[in-house]
């Protein structure tokens, strides 16, 4: 721990309390916030918006798969290892469709998996929030909110007061 503040973490009693708190802090113009919940809460997307470039990545991955499959089959069937089957055309594209489909799906799926983890900056086994023992509840039944120190409005004392007004179940100051 370098002693630099990372942010202020607070626990709330349930999903609606958490949403209410996030909404209030958003109203106070805090922008660098993150919530930690035991299941995906779609409602939070309205309060903490973020752009999601995963679908575009997956589309690109699928496209690369399709191009790879077509190029590979065409090159092998026409130039690398041409087989004359009763004088039928070497470029017999209908029989290439199956592998084209399979590789499109394969490349897109691998992109979806790798893209999800890399955009989420995972793996990251150590993180300031893990220093709070109570944070173990975030993967079970705890609802947490963290105002991060990179927020321009962040001030250790005033932010803490703002959070404490919202009736949290616990408040912790996090250090990097």
């Amino acid at each position: 721990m370098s002693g630099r503040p990372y942010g202020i973490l607070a626990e709330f009693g349930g999903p609606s309390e958490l949403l209410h708190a996030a909404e209030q802090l958003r109203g106070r113009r805090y922008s660098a916030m993150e919530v930690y919940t035991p299941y995906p809460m779609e409602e939070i997307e309205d309060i903490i918006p973020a752009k999601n470039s995963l679908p575009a990545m997956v589309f690109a991955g699928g496209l690369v798969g399709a191009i790879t499959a077509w190029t590979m089959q065409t090159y092998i069937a026409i130039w690398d290892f041409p087989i004359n089957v009763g004088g039928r055309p070497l470029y017999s594209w209908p029989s290439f469709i199956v592998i084209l489909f399979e590789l499109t799906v394969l490349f897109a799926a691998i992109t979806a998996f790798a893209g999800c983890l890399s955009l989420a900056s995972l793996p990251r086994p150590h993180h300031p929030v893990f220093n709070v023992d109570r944070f173990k509840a975030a993967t079970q039944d705890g609802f947490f909110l963290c105002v991060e120190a990179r927020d321009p409005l962040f001030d250790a004392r005033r932010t803490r007061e703002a959070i404490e007004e919202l009736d949290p179940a616990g408040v912790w100051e996090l250090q990097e």
Partner: protein
Amino acid sequence: MPAGDVQDLQSRSQRRPDAGAAPALIAPGQTFRSITDQICGFILTRKSPLLWWAALAFGMLLSLNLLTVVTLILYRGVGLYGIQIPVAWGFAITNFVWWIGIGHAGTLISAFLLLMNQGWRNSINRFAEAMTIFAVMCAGMFPIMHLGRPWIFYWLIPYPNTMTVQPQFRSPLVWDIFAVSTYFTVSLLFWYLGMIPDLATLRDKAKSRWAQRFYGIACWGWRGASRHWRLHETASLLLAGLATPLVLSVHTVVSFDFTISILPGWHSTIFPPYFVAGAIFSGFAMVLVLAIPIRSVYHLDNLLTERHLNNCAKLMLATGLIVAYTYALEPFTSWYSGDTFEMFMVHNRATGPYAWAFWGVIACNVAIPQLLWRRSFRVRPKRLFFVSIVILYGMWLERYMIIVTALHRDFLPSSWANFVATVTDNALLYGSIGLFVLLFALFVRFLPMISMYEVRELLPFPSPAGGSKK
């Protein structure tokens, strides 16, 4: 946002998806904590039940048998099988088609029902997906063990080599390699991605250092941030969207192995939908064969309710009727074709040396599943278990019938011959069942067999007394 919107958000968060249907899906009185404790308990604290040890021992014994048989086949060759010309495909391909079909229900539950927003799938999708992966592992072994020289199976994959030869992309056998390996990879990624949040729960619940490290590494440092959840949800939906056409394509490609030939009984356009329906039919039977004992041994009636059994049974009945329809259509198309060989094949299938297989298929896949029209056979576990076992056997027999009856009477009567399974054939089949049971037993012991975060989505959070206040 004005205060009214906050109110609206709060009420929306109270109205969890399927909150109205929750009592039927999940027994009343469940909380986030009780669900988490229950499912983590199987892995972290509770001693394993006797049936688990029995399954492990059974699986290990038969897997040892599998190792022995595989070693023998690698050493002595495929002459140990009962195959001979004209029946060049025997048990190995039957088992391959059977196992890969079983996998299909898992993907259907995890991907297709997710896209259809069917909340009831949430408590069965994890182990159904595990079933898919283990079934595909068993399936993948058979085509390789059916090759004359299994150790060079990788020649089917295109790669630059000093022999300057390449695979033939017009062959369905090469398509099969791509279809099955893609299916396995995508199922594995989907299964693992879905498990990451639950592995994080296990990391946080674990007491022993070893378990904390194992699950901590396996969950990649998941912390449940909204940014993570958003990506996770997007990736899950995209993978589901990719897996749904994939699952239809896999058995279609498997059926191409048959239809691209010119053999009567194989060369038919009905095969792709026929195979896919049969695959889902047998897959749901396997889901139930696994779910019913697990439900009673691990006391999961609160999460695997009557409604789950009922829904699976209904899907089984529906796909079974599609299969029955194709059974009826096959004789019609061969009669309508006017082709002598086609008509002989249908006649010979029902009355020839393998008539027992044909009538067995009709009994197991058409007659007995009609019991499912009665509600008691859909919701009473023992009865449903019985019907599912019968269907699993019937679907294996169906593939045996398709392969052997089409091959044993080919165009030249002088080459006609019958197929008789050898000890090796049987040992390989039972060995694969043992491997499946072993893998499944290990899965139940070490990984969360029910998706905890998806079950939480079905639960209303009893705020603020939900137990999270200190």
